[in-house]
């Protein structure tokens, strides 16, 4: 199927700024879905609030654009109600890990079969460039005129610790890898977390003198490396890309069905 067949062209143009990385993530996501040959009717995409969360409006799936931070809780309800559906939850960094942090760790703990994509541009874009829990220290933002003092979460470490059974990271520079990893995450039975480093030239880039969108994407190329690479050994500051965790553990909906069998037998 052509990529545009997955889009609701009626609702374009989209609201993302020129140079925003979110459209690149959307591109990678749709290519992954196309490659998997999934029917549009079997996909439910759930999002919260923020620039990234507007992605749901543009795709021709069952789409649920919810409230800030709670997308995974809504998605848990949909998945439990109809386990045969595929749940994809794109989230921004603030949406996923500030206001939504509780739901994030609990969805991971349950290992419910949902694919969470954290589109991490390290800033609240929609509200005008405030720092997020993924901004890290010494970042300039509209709420950090004297630079941030807040340490950052590491999405990968957090997801691993909380029990996610598929954990990966890539960037918008590595667009083939975005598609490849998201495809694997969708196929994985359990809670999958894919962090995609994405650029916000309008707020993060401008405030922090990181140049334009192209410069920012180049930055992802320079500052990341494959998991366990020689480059990482030589320069520990490099951020690793790839699949960190891919394990088979009991999935929540399947376990629930086993519990139903016990309940029906009166055990």
């Amino acid at each position: 199927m052509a990529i545009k067949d997955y889009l609701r062209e009626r609702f374009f143009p989209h609201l993302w700024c020129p140079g925003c990385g979110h459209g690149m993530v959307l591109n990678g996501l749709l290519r992954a879905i196309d490659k998997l040959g999934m029917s549009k009717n079997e996909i439910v995409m759930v999002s919260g609030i923020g620039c990234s969360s507007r992605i749901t409006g543009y795709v021709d799936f069952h789409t649920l654009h919810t409230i800030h931070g709670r997308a995974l809780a809504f998605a848990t309800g949909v998945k439990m109600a109809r386990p045969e559906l595929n749940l994809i939850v794109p989230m921004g960094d603030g949406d996923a890990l500030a206001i939504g942090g509780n739901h994030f760790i609990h969805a991971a703990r349950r290992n419910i079969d949902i694919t969470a994509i954290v589109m991490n541009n390290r800033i609240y874009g929609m509200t005008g460039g405030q720092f997020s829990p993924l901004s890290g220290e010494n970042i300039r933002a509209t709420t950090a005129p004297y630079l941030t003092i807040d340490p950052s979460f590491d999405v990968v470490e957090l997801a691993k610790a909380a029990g996610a059974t598929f954990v990966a990271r890539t960037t918008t520079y590595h667009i083939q890898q975005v598609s490849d990893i998201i495809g694997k995450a969708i196929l994985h039975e359990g809670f999958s977390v894919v962090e995609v480093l994405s650029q916000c030239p309008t707020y993060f880039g401008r405030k922090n003198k990181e140049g334009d969108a192209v410069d920012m994407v180049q930055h992802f190329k320079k500052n990341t490396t494959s998991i366990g690479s020689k480059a990482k050994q030589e320069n520990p500051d490099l951020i690793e890309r790839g699949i960190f965790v891919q394990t088979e553990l009991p999935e929540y909906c399947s376990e629930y069905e086993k519990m139903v069998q016990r309940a029906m037998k009166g055990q």
Partner: protein
Amino acid sequence: MSENVKFVQGNEACAEAALYAGLDFYAGYPITPSSEITEYLAYHLPQIGGKFLQMEDEIASLCAIIGASLTGRKVMTATSGPGFSLMQEALGYAIMAEIPCVIVDVQRGGPSTGLPTHGSQADVNQARWGTHGDHAIIALTASNHQDVFSITVEAFNLAETYRTPVILLLDELVAHMRERLVIPEPGKIPLVDRLKTSVKEGVDYHPYLPREDGRLPMSDFGGVHRFNVTGLFHDMWGFPSSEPSIVHGLLRHLVDKLENRAHQLACYKEYYTEDAEQLLLSYGSSARSALHTVENRRKRGERLGLLELQTLWPFPEDIVREKCAGMKSVIVVEQNMGQVLQAVKLAVDEPAKVFLANRIDGVFITPADILNILRLIQGKGV
């Protein structure tokens, strides 16, 4: 067939009724005094293949049932004041996105953690205005277990009919008291099933285009129609819009579909009102003491009546105005600082004749408390 009689708590009566109404998806979080509803359904729902989730908080509980409702399931959550406070944003979402769900708030004393194990009826206005923005809401209540059963079924029926959240305002006393309950035969209380679209696959489908009667025949998630659901103002496709005519039209639809039906949504009971000169107006557990007071005073020849409201929102203004007309006085009996009192004063022709008999100390209001107020109004002193 012999009657199915149980001796149960009000919370169990509510949970039994939810199952009778076709509940098949529940999510909740422990909180006193509502936990027995959650526990009861944790036991019974899996036995019938239904879904039970204990979520990480009350916010997630309401969000999860909204998600499940979109797939066509009948859903409920239950909580108490602090949890109900947390749910308010998602409640507004369900109103805006027109998603059927039932939210039980077993009221306890507040504000804040308040009096977890004591009764109260102080969430009446939170049920009305807890979530932000202009909106309409349905809130129901009941004073005894048989009525808790029937009003819970009604809550599901109204949620499904109007595609709206319905709030069931129980209170600690009714929730924890044990009382006789007769479970009606299946089918005895009619059940409403959700209206489904007849639009065929491949035809442009408008999920948010209401019929002339205000009802939405929606497709389920996972079905042949794919559409967008959002808490933003949206057009007939469900796509966000800030076009003034669309914003105005949607808000009017959301409010009018309930407010214009206040009369037909009104559930209430009357006792000794035919010849009454004075009227007690009450609801929930307070109505039990009010009824006791009325029956006692009747024995002494006093022409006292009782109007027991079961629908609190939309407020049944016409019915309250009509029943209060010509009364020497109307005494609103409630366990808060006058939340329904204010609505009654706005509804009646002579607000100066409306008085309050209340308790706000966590102690159940007694017939003696009500009698004291009555005597004061009658000029007889306490």
